[in-house]
C-alpha cells in the first residue's frame, strides 16, 4: 500500500514518525512514549476511525482505516490502535456509541464464546485478548438465546489475567462472570462471530504486511552497510537471493492483505468470496511472517537477535499477530472445509471471482 495515499494515513504516519520512532521506542525502557502517542492518535480521531460521526467517531471509510493499520504495522505500533478501531467498528454494527479511551474486543479467538444470560448479564472466558490490560472498555460479541448481541462493557468489571504474547505485548485472559454491560443491542441480521473474526484477521494481516515491508527495508539497508569478507554482504549472491525471497514474502503478504481489505470495503455482505479473501489473507500473511521474519534475522546475524536492535519489534510482533482472531491453521481448516463443501468444480469459479 502506498504511503501517504490519503489524509488519514498521512496524519498517522506523521504521528508515528514523531512519537513512535522504532529506535527511540526501543531505547525507552520506561515506555514513556506510550502516553503521548496515544494522546496524539486520539486527538487526531484515529482510534475511532471506523466509528460514524453520530456515534462519537471520525467516520473514516473502511478502506482508509485498513490503510492506517498497514501504516501502523510499518511502525510496529504497540498501543491498542487496531484493537480500539475494531472495538469501535464492532459497536457501530449495533449502533452503539463509542466511549473515549482504549478499547479492545472479545472474544479474540474463534474458539471462545461469551454468552448472554436471560437477566442481561454476560459470562464467559476469552483468551489471548490483545491489550485487555490497557483497555478501559471492551466491545463484546455475545451469544444469547435470541442470537448474537453486541455489548459495551466496563473493563473494571471483568477479571483479567495478565499475559504477554511472543511480541511482548499484552495478550490477556478476560473472564466475565455475570457482568452487566453498559449497553447491549442485538447485532444486525447475518452478523456473527465469524464475521468479527474475519475482520480482525484482515486487520492483523495488514499489520503483518506492514511489519514485513519494514523488515525488508531495514534488512536491505543493513546488507548495504555491513561488511564481511572485505565486501558489503549485499554483494553476496546467497544474501541477495535470501533478500529476494523476503521481498516475495513481503509482496505476497501485502497483496493478500490489501486485496482482502478491498474486498471487505466493497462488499455488501460477507459471502464466500469475501471469506476466501479474508481467510487467505490471514493464512498467507502468517506464513509470510514466519518465512520473511526468518530471512530478516538471517541477514542481520547476531545483532538482530539483540534487544537493542529494532528488528525484533517487527519480527516478533508479526509472529504474535498470527495468533489473534484465529490462527492460520484455524482458517486453513475452515477454508478447506468451505472449498470441499462447494465441490471440486466450484473451486476455480471461487478463486476467479474477482
Amino acid at each position: 500500500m502506498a504511503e501517504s495515499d490519503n489524509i488519514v494515513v498521512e496524519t498517522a504516519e506523521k504521528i508515528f514518525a514523531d512519537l513512535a520512532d522504532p529506535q527511540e521506542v526501543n531505547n525507552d525502557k520506561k515506555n514513556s512514549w506510550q502516553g503521548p502517542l496515544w494522546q496524539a492518535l486520539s486527538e487526531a480521531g484515529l482510534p475511532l476511525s471506523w466509528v460514524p460521526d453520530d456515534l462519537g467517531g471520525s467516520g473514516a471509510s473502511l478502506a482508509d482505516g485498513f490503510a492506517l493499520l498497514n501504516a501502523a504495522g510499518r511502525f510496529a505500533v504497540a498501543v491498542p490502535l487496531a484493537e480500539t478501531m475494531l472495538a469501535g467498528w464492532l459497536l457501530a454494527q449495533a449502533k452503539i456509541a463509542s466511549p473515549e479511551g482504549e478499547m479492545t474486543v472479545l472474544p479474540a479467538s474463534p474458539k471462545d464464546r461469551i454468552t448472554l444470560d436471560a437477566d442481561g448479564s454476560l459470562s464467559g472466558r476469552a483468551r489471548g485478548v490483545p491489550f485487555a490490560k490497557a483497555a478501559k472498555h471492551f466491545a463484546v460479541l455475545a451469544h444469547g438465546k435470541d442470537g448474537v448481541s453486541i455489548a459495551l462493557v466496563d473493563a473494571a468489571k471483568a477479571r483479567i489475567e495478565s499475559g504477554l504474547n511472543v511480541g511482548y505485548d499484552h495478550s490477556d485472559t478476560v473472564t466475565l462472570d455475570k457482568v452487566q454491560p453498559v449497553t447491549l443491542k442485538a447485532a444486525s441480521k447475518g452478523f456473527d462471530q465469524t464475521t468479527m473474526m474475519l475482520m480482525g484477521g484482515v486487520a492483523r494481516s495488514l499489520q503483518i504486511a506492514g511489519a514485513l515491508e519494514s523488515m525488508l527495508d531495514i534488512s536491505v539497508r543493513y546488507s548495504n552497510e555491513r561488511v564481511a569478507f572485505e565486501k558489503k554482504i549485499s554483494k553476496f549472491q546467497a544474501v541477495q537471493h535470501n533478500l529476494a525471497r523476503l521481498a516475495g514474502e513481503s509482496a505476497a503478504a501485502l497483496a493478500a492483505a490489501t486485496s482482502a481489505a478491498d474486498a471487505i470495503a466493497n462488499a455488501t455482505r460477507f459471502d464466500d468470496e469475501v471469506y476466501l479473501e479474508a481467510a487467505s489473507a490471514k493464512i498467507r500473511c502468517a506464513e509470510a511472517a514466519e518465512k520473511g521474519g526468518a530471512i530478516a534475522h538471517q541477514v542481520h546475524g547476531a545483532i538482530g537477535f539483540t534487544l537493542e536492535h529494532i528488528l525484533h519489534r517487527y519480527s516478533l510482533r508479526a509472529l504474535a499477530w498470527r495468533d489473534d482472531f484465529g490462527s492460520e491453521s484455524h482458517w486453513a481448516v475452515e477454508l478447506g472445509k468451505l472449498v470441499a463443501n462447494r465441490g471440486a468444480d466450484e473451486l476455480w469459479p471461487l478463486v476467479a471471482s474477482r
Partner: protein
Amino acid sequence: MTAALRFDPIRLPEKCEQLRKEVRAFLAEEIAAGTFDPHKPNREDTDAPEFSRRVGAKGWLGMTWPKKYGGQERSFLERYVVTEEMRVANAPTRRFFVADRQSGPVLIKYAPENIKMEILPRICRGEICFAIGMSEPNSGSDLFAAKTRATKTDGGYLINGTKIWTSSAHIADYMIAIFRTSAPTKENRRHGLTQFLVKMKQPGIQVNPIGQITGQYEFNEVVFTDFFVPDDHVLGEVDGAWKQATSELAYERSGPERFLETYYVLTELVRAVGPNPDTRSAEGIGRLVAQLHTMRRMSVSVAGMLEAGKEPVVEASIVKDIGTVWEQQLPHRVRDLAAFVEETATNRETLERQLDFAIKTAPKLTIQGGTTEVLRGIIARGLGLR
C-alpha cells in the same frame, strides 16, 4: 523505503466477467465435442490446429492488438481472463500461446509494416505457430553468450549455428531468435546480438526433437546451416537486442500460466476427499487455496499495471518466482494429502495418473522462461543490491 513494491488490488471490470462466461461456454462445447479432455493434463501432446483457428475466430488471439493487424484492441485484463480459463480447462493452447503472448507484441514493436500486415492477422486467426530461439548449447540463462552467427550478405544475413530447448520448433511456422551480428565489446558484453524473424520449414533449418523426462517431445534442437534471412526480417536495432528484451519480460513472467501449470491436481484432490474432509485434508487444501488465491491476486495486479502502461519488471519477477516454486511443489503437497484418500474414491485413478505427470513436469517449471536464480537476481537488482 528501499523497495516500493506495489500490488494494488485490481477488481476485474464487468466486461471481463461477461467474457469469462463466453470462454467457459466455448470450452465446454469443445470438451463436449471431444476436442480435448480437461482431466488429461498432458495437453502438450496435443497439437490442435483446428481448435486454434476456432479460438482465433472468437477474437481471442491478439485481442489487445490494433485492429488494423487483426486485433480487437481489448484490455490486458480481458486477455488475462481468456488465458486463465484456457489454462484451468487444460485446453490445447500450444499452437497459439507463444505467438499471442510474446511474439506478436515483439513484431508490433520492432517489425517493419509489411511484415506486421502479413503475419499479425494470421496469428489472430490462429493459423500460425511461433517458437522462441534463445538458448544455445553453451548459452542458457546467460543469454549474451549466444554464438549462432548472422553474417551480412546481399539483401540479408546467413545464419549458422544451433539453438536448443526450443519449444514447439517442430510445429512452428516462425521463430523469433537472437543471433550474433558482432562481437561483444569490452565495455558492453551484451552488445552484438540482433533479434530476427525466421521463417521455419525451409531448407537450411533442421529441427531435431529432444525427449523430455515426461515422455513428451516438446522441445527441440534447431540447426541452421547457411540459412538466409532477408533484411526486412531484422527486428529492431542491429547489435542492440539487449535494449529490447526488458519490457516484454513483464508480460512473459506474470501471467496465470506461471502458477497454474499443475493446478489440475488440486481440483482432483478436492474431488477425491469429498464434501466432508478430515482435519488434515481440510487444512492442507485450505493453505494451498490461500496461496493460490494470493498469487492470482498478485498476478492480476501486475496485469492491471501493464494495462495502465507501467513496466512492473520486479513485481512480475516476484510473481514468477513465487508462482513457479508453488506450482512445482503443488503435486508433492497433493500427493502428501492424497496419501489417506479412500481407495474407493471414484476419481482415484485420474488423480494418480495426473500426479504421475505433474511430478514429472515439476522440475522444468522453475527453469523455463527465466530460472529462479535469474529471477532472484532481477529482484535483488530492483532492491538496490546489485
